[in-house]
């Protein structure tokens, strides 16, 4: 069983940017030298609602990228969808607001040692951490192609600057309002053989991750996926964010997606048991 991210630290940090990008908020936080510890795939847990809030739990967000800027030092970027009360509160915070965060948390995407062909697949705002990852992969010499999907155009997150680090970007919407009409997983089998893909990196809804795992099951392709399960603490103590994962001896462990994840080997996650009671179905 894995241990908590050794670089995890709690700090009060200032929001230095908050702008609307499509249906999402792009939030920049000044975190100083902590950026050097953040890797693609890691996440941050943020207190929401202020000191007298009835929301007692932190909210977890994937770190989409980290940068060094002249004016703000090290900054962390988050792409936040204002869905629930907590994320709405965060999106309403102005520049200059101070928030309490714990980061970096969780596992990171593994980077190939060889310059191989990789495919990045993002669903909705799950695409956010993939652009930072693409830069790292490109620096490693990998050829990076990307697929983004969402139900509709407004839910696609594809910043202009992100497109520079990828060889090709294809967009899929289920309602056909942007890019190609269909599911983002539709072209994957063909791309795997056409491009000779060695690794697929994915981030998005669990259904999408499960579908990619099914596609790669009988292929010689590594599938690293960033999972998303509701969590209370983000630091491994509440045991709520568990996923059924197959061990080498075929037994099942309920692993914490905050510590053993969020990046997991998609071929080990027992997707059909997610949300079921493994003690009964074992």
């Amino acid at each position, binding site marked *: 069983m894995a241990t908590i991210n050794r670089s995890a630290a709690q700090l009060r940090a200032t929001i230095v940017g908050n702008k609307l990008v499509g249906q999402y908020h792009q939030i920049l936080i000044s975190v100083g030298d902590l950026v050097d510890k953040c890797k693609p795939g890691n996440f941050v847990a943020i207190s929401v609602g202020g000191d007298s809030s009835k929301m*007692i*739990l932190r909210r977890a967000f994937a770190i989409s990228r980290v940068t060094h800027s002249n004016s703000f030092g090290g900054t962390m970027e988050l792409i936040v969808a204002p869905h629930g009360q907590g994320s709405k509160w965060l999106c309403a915070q102005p520049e200059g607001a101070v928030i*309490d965060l714990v980061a970096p948390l969780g596992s990171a995407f593994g980077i190939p040692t060889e310059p191989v062909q990789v495919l990045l697949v993002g669903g909705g705002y799950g695409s956010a951490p993939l652009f930072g990852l693409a830069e790292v992969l490109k620096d490693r010499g990998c050829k990076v192609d990307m697929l983004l999907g969402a139900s509709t155009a407004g839910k696609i997150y594809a910043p202009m600057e992100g497109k520079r680090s990828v060889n090709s970007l294809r967009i899929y919407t289920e309602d056909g309002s942007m890019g190609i009409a269909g599911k983002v997983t539709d072209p994957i089998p063909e791309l795997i053989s056409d491009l000779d893909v060695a690794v697929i990196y994915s981030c998005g809804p669990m259904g999408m991750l499960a579908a990619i795992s099914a596609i790669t099951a009988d292929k010689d392709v590594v599938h690293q996926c960033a999972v998303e399960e509701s969590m209370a*603490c983000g630091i491994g*103590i509440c045991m709520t964010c568990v996923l*059924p994962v197959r061990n080498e001896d075929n037994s099942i462990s309920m692993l914490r997606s905050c510590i053993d994840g969020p990046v997991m080997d998609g071929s080990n996650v027992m997707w059909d048991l997610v949300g079921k*009671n493994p003690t009964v179905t074992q």
Partner: protein
Amino acid sequence: MTAVDFSTTFSNAWFPTPVFTASGCASSGKELAQFFPLKDIGAVVTKSIMNKARLGRATPRMAETPSGMLNSIGLQGPGIDTFIEKDIPWLVEQKARIIVSIAGETIEEYSTLARKLRSVSGISAIEVNISCPNVENRGLVFACDPEASRKVIDGVRRTIGGELPIIAKLSPDVTDIVTIAKGVVDAGADGIALINTVLGMVINLSTMRPHLGGKTGGLSGPAIRPIAVRAIYQVHAAIPNIPILGMGGVTSGRDAFEMILAGASAVSVGTASFGNPMAIPHIQEELKSLLEEKGFKQIKDAIGYAHRTDEHHE
């Protein structure tokens, strides 16, 4: 100003501070140790351990509620043998005081667990969790039945009584908690832990079904704190000589102080650590300041202070 004597005792177990982790909210301490040294707090109360490894309940396992949360873990854990082999030595290395929480499906399982812990060195006390709400059969919540509660504690006492203090953890989901508390003390409990989570439910409006995989869950957090204070007050009034480990929504030094005034000899902090990994050291500092501010020279003088009949004001 002289420093407050912050130490507290449960039977023959001594703790340098009265602020502990709460069982099930700190795993076995490794994760929180990233944020503060475990030796700096009163004790680590480990997540309730069963005899065999257990996978627990299906997800979703949690739902946030106003000033609280429901959890439905179902006692996931590695089993006592792995726990003794791996977690205890690590905690001993950290110089943490250790209270091991045990949970069983049968009265015999509790005795088995106590027997396995008997020869393990480095443990300060045993918390006997007879009140986990996340079991399939409510009839198995021993703490809802005075007779079953007594039998569990009696079995543990026969195994390790006199060697390690036995703290019985009770459920607030009973008609009369004092009866249950008196029963377990008669059976040999050296202390009482109050309270476990309160049974609750959230319906998901999208699926229009219970949100949690286990349908029901245990409510924790500030939402339940007044229930805990009430239970501590009632039990301390009935059996003032029995130390109480108070818990339920403690988030600040003020909350810890409130429980001590109600009759707690120490407090456990659980859900607050989910929202703030530094909650326990912060609460500890705040409590110390409060005790000093109120003029208490030792924590023992504050325990149950809310019960005094003397109306004389200084």
